């Protein structure tokens, strides 16, 4: 069973509870990286412009001055090479954390991610493992157009041997990343660009958020919203206004796609009978198809009062024009509309 986890930025006007303070999502990531490097000298960072520049999105910030050029290692523009170097360093006992500036550029490194990192442990019959983390920002909303705005989480979720994490709150950005760094397997951590500047309470300590636990962000009996990435806060906003119309929604944040904790989803849908699955990525072949299939493949099916509704990004490359870009991915008003239709049906 899931308990009500701390709400994400959008809804987080709350005072931090004792032992935690308000940090931005980037600060939370940075804090996790710093704590991991302090606790374990095998941990090091490599990536393009993560050093004195502080990272394309400023996430590594001052880590370069704090930990030096050896452990906060700037690299040439060679995604395949640096991910491969991380695989080799992991095999040799280190705990590399690679940053890829935009998740779109994981395309350059797919061989090392998919054919090497993901498979080595199994392919070698367990004789070796690849404890590495690949951090990369995904998503649209920055006006960077089609080659800098994709949400490719479904690719990684479909690769056996990879764990896939999508933190949506500063607390999770830290806690899930720490868990990913502990993990003896390759873990892909997909951070959302639009969340970097959002803030929320983050525990002081080195509390881990275990991989594979879906978080219930809001409680309601009329429908179930399942979301990932920035869509979680949009669903919470939508749920707020729905509440004003007397419609109460469960809002579930998957947090990790692999391993996927689908029990809270199935339990919630069995209770509400209505499922609204919201993702930023294009719908066709997207991960919410997996979630819909889990629902349709379980006894929750018998509790459905309406067809499972997916609200996803349009099946288009993200355009540059702001109004077109917005029109391509679910916005709060669209979520509200879809929820009303669903609740009304």
């Amino acid at each position, binding site marked *: 069973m899931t308990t009500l986890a701390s709400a994400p930025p959008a809804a987080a006007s709350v005072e931090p509870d004792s032992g935690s303070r308000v940090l931005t999502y980037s600060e939370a990531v940075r804090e996790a990286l710093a704590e991991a490097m302090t606790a374990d000298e095998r941990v090091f960072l490599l990536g393009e412009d993560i050093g004195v*520049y502080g990272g394309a999105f400023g996430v590594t910030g001052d880590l370069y001055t704090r930990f030096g050029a050896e452990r906060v290692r700037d690299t040439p*523009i*060679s995604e395949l090479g640096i991910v491969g170097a991380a695989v080799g360093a992991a095999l040799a006992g280190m705990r590399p954390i690679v940053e890829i500036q935009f998740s779109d550029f994981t395309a350059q490194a797919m061989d090392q991610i998919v054919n090497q990192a993901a498979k080595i442990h199994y392919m070698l019959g367990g004789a070796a493992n690849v404890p590495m983390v690949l951090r990369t920002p995904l998503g649209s909303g920055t006006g*960077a157009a089609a080659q800098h705005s994709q949400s490719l989480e479904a690719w990684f979720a479909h690769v056996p041997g990879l764990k896939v994490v999508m933190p949506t709150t500063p607390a999770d950005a830290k806690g899930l990343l720490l868990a990913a760094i502990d993990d003896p397997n390759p873990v892909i951590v997909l951070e959302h660009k639009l969340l970097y500047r959002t803030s929320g309470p983050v525990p002081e300590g080195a509390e881990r958020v275990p991989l594979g636990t879906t978080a219930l962000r809001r409680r309601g009996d009329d429908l179930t919203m399942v979301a990932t990435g920035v869509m979680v806060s949009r669903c919470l906003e939508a749920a707020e206004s729905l509440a004003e119309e007397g419609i109460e929604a469960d809002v579930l944040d998957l947090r990790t796609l692999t391993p996927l904790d689908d029990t809270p989803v199935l339990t919630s849908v069995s209770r509400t009978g209505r499922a609204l699955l919201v993702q930023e990525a294009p719908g066709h072949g997207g991960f919410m198809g997996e979630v819909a299939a889990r629902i349709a493949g379980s006894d929750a099916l018998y509790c459905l009062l309406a067809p499972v509704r997916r609200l996803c990004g349009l099946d288009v490359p993200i355009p540059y024009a702001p109004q077109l870009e917005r029109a391509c991915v679910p916005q709060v008003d669209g979520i509200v509309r879809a929820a009303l239709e669903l609740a009304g049906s």
Partner: protein
Amino acid sequence: MAESSQDRLGDEAATARRTLQTMWEIRRFEEAVDDLFARGLMHGTMHLSIGQEASATGACAALRPGDAITSTHRGHGHCIAQGADLTRMMAELLAKETGYCRGRGGSMHIADVATGNLGANGIVAGGIPIAVGAALARKMRSEDSVVLSFFGDGAANEGAFHEAMNLAAIWRLPVVMVCENNRYGMSFSTEKAFAIAHISERAAAYGMPGVTVEGNDVEAVHAAVGEAVDRARAGDGPTLVEAETYRWKGHSKSDKNLYRTKEEIASWRDRDPIGRFEAVVLERGTLTDTDVAEIREAAKQAVRDAVREANAAPDADPADLVTGVFAGVPA
């Protein structure tokens, strides 16, 4: 375009005029972009090539109609030098329906198929294999046109560069590889990114000629690229031309310039490619002070008009937002 690679760009008045005006249009266009962005009238991110006008201008001056280029994320200069319409470029940056990409692409994806610009590219080194393919098409059709691929120093460490260079070499393709070495890939200096002195040294690894030129000397770039273009057109295969230059502005909007000194930037501002060419043509008497003043004014005016017209144009139209993904199957 298409000055013979023999003549210097600064010797003959018409050519000198065109060359200087192109460089000024690039400069003014990007200053306008910088300004619009700063005033919040332009969104997304921008990569400005201010300070690098000579490499774009000199290289494209060596091309003819029918030739093509592939460009980069820092591609405004290439696009203008290749003869693009300033208004349609500005309209694209302002996300207008009249823009080159109808507002779908923005700064990193401007293409102008008519003038042979196969497109800027948001992917570092992404355009190099594409240039090789466009050159392969020309060779297979036995055309005598060539393809020129612009890319940066940072791009030379991508696998795409390596694979494309080798394909161009073994197939002796009519392609010219122009590496604009502006000393940095974002914040990473060429001293750190390479264990060699000149990127042009890499040409030998593929069995192609390589040369390094003063990238802020538009005549030197034109001469070196012109020679490479002649070689390609003659069927003698590809060349790697490295143009040493410098970007005055930050890498993009998020750049705090922490990786370089004010002094370094200043020293390169003193090597302004435009001022340098003006001095040359004045000293040679190819142009007069009045000519130069007129050209500056004309460039400023052209950019002003472009901004005005672009602003007046309709915003990108969501009409075919979904249906535009696939080209229709011909009847």
